[in-house]
């Protein structure tokens, strides 16, 4: 199968959908001629024109609000927020309006909107442009939260997000944009709420999101050579969360390590750990669940410190070993 990048997979998914469905349009800052802050919409204005690839003023709450309105009135907007840190500017529209409308109008109105945004650290964008805030949104009933970790998943999950009648927040990790992988040419959909076992193993379950899936897979390869067999699970969507796949895996291995880039304190890893221990998997746990996440600091600008502030492969290896300690 042909290989394309994560970034190309997202562009292809949107383009294919826009060719099929004229209600779909894009809105965001510099997404037209400039092609978006990370080049995701590069060239799309040429095919779809500036009516459907709409550059906006620098007012996230303004154009997000406009997108919510157009979604309620029948359009299917895709909003690009340059950096997920700026989500915080849109939060009233997103949390108080988009997430609530369908419920408050008893299903008569719906908000079929996708909000795409790059998140995460690793490229030297410093504290205001490098955060991972998915847990904030996974806390809100009425939203769906997606975090793809491969080009294949990105294309299929985005298709599902565009087909969804509720607002979906779609996080794209900056460091993954350049990642290449096999992606089918035709459009396909990966259901929201279905986790993927990225690697099967027997001894420890690693539940990782976004770029941490890739780092966990790397860690698993190294651990394999030491005789430790890791199962790596990518929930792919935090909301809805595929609890069953996680629980079944932990029942098999008896040990769990949860990894995300977001700050550990109050991060979604706590939720996953709780899901495990509240479930029937509790009686199978043979070690405390390890939770790996970013340090409780703003992401530093210094590249070494930046790297050090979020889990790396070595940290995951250490975390796994902590669950299988024997004296």
């Amino acid at each position, binding site marked *: 199968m042909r290989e394309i990048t994560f970034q190309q997979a997202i562009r292809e998914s949107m383009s294919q959908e826009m060719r099929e469905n004229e209600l779909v349009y894009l809105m965001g800052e510099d997404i037209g001629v400039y092609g978006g802050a990370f080049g995701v919409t590069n060239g799309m204005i040429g095919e779809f024109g500036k009516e459907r690839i709409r550059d906006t003023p620098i007012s996230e709450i303004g154009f997000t609000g406009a997108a919510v309105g157009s979604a309620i009135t029948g359009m299917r907007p895709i909003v690009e927020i340059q950096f997920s840190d700026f989500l915080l500017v849109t939060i009233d529209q997103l949390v108080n309006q988009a997430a609530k409308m369908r419920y408050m109008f008893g299903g008569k109105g719906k908000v079929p909107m996708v909000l795409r945004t790059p998140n995460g650290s690793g490229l030297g964008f410093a504290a205001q442009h490098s955060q991972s805030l998915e847990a904030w949104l996974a806390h809100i009933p009425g939203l769906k939260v997606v975090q793809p970790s491969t080009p294949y998943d990105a294309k299929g999950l985005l298709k599902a997000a565009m087909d969804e009648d509720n607002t979906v927040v779609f996080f794209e990790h900056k460091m993954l944009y350049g990642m290449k992988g096999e992606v089918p040419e035709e459009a396909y959909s990966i259901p929201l709420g279905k986790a993927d076992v990225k690697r099967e193993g027997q001894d420890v379950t690693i539940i990782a999101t976004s770029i941490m899936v890739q780092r966990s897979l790397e860690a698993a390869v190294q651990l394999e050579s030491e005789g430790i067999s890791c199962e790596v699970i990518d929930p792919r969507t935090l909301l809805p969360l595929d609890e069953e796949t996680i629980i079944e895996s932990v029942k098999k291995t*008896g040990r769990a390590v949860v990894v995300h880039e977001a700050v550990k304190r109050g991060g979604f890893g706590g939720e996953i750990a709780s899901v495990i221990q509240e479930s029937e998997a*509790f*009686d*199978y*746990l*043979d*070690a*405390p669940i390890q939770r790996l996440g970013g340090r409780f600091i703003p992401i530093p600008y210094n590249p070494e410190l930046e790297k050090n502030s979020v889990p790396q492969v070595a940290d995951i290896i250490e975390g796994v070993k902590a669950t299988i*300690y*024997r*004296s």
Partner: protein
Amino acid sequence: MANEVFMPKLGASMESGTILQWFKEEGESISEGEMLFEVMTDKVNIEIEADSTGVLLKKLYEVNDEVPVNQVIAYIGQKTEDVEGLMKESLEDERDKTPNDNKEDHNLMPFKEREKIRATPAARKQARDYQIELNEIVGTGPRGRIQLDDVKEFVNKLEPDVKVTPLATKIAKAEQINLDEIKGSGVQGKIMSEDVRPQRSRVGEERREERIQMKGIRKVISQRMIESAFTAPHATITTEVDMSAIKEMRQELLPRIEEQIGERISYTEIIMKAVGLMLKKHRIINSSLQDDYIILHPNVNIGLAVAAPDGLVVPVIKECDQRGLTELTEVTKGVTRLARENKLNLDQMSGSTFTISNLGMYAIDAFSPIINQPESAILGVGRILEKPVGVAGTIVLRPMMALSLSFDHRIIDGAPAAAFLTELKETLEKPIVMLA
């Protein structure tokens, strides 16, 4: 403030009780009136209710621990409450009470032993499944935490791996034979293919025995039987009773009593009534030996041996001589039912002065029952069977029933025992005399 749970004093003679089971785990919530634990006295097993509402904070004793009455055995309180302080308090109280005791760690020991064990949920589950106490296992995890592998290793040591040849393994799998039950004929008991071949296994089969621990009611029965059989010299005498009249009487009473109370009168109640009246007359049979005195009981309280699911129990029907047959039937059926459901309370099981054991529902003619101490005699009732008997020179069939009286020869001699049994026989053959 947490509430203390005490070992209850369930009878005047009760000095200690054995905890048979806890119905609640530590940390579980419990409300007043809910069953908290089951205790065994020398007479009976009783379920004890909680007398306060809250969370079971701490259990100070485990199952099978024997605890003196009025000792604190658990605490119920609010989730956040700290019981350690309370425990120390009651501990110090106890110390004050026993000044002679060694002042050192002696008193602290039981609590030290019960220090929380670090173990993972998986290890705990495995230990539960194998019924292993965690404190027997050495943990190899961080800070001595017991992990699944520690339990598995412990189990493996208990049950050494069965040595078995590959072929035997295959055959066993195909034939669905449990290798644990096979005794190997190879070197060091190695299971060979011949051992598991179907035709062989039937011939040379040696099944493992089943082991049932003597505990609870079984243990109580055992101790009481030993006590009775080896302290009281038993003598047993038997006679046969013609039950024609009783049979007729029962047929007449049956519908009347059933209409009144919805219970069917059985021979047992009629025999109890007759025995009650006879005991009133033959007081030596209704007696107990206490040290150097023979106690002649003023009341006639008859115990009735009942086969409960866990073993023999003896509910007591008080003042049998005073009750009419309707009432006797009602009371007897009631306690027998409770006995079969293990629901008798201590009161319903104590105070008997004589016991009747009826095996009439089986094909048993006569037997020599063991006296229910501290009573001095017991009546064994056999089945009613039509037998040829000589009446006025002819042979006729009559419903005959054997009565066996075992008596404690220390107290009762043969003659008074025989007199009692004879008069009982006559009464049963001519029940009208009961009205006299």
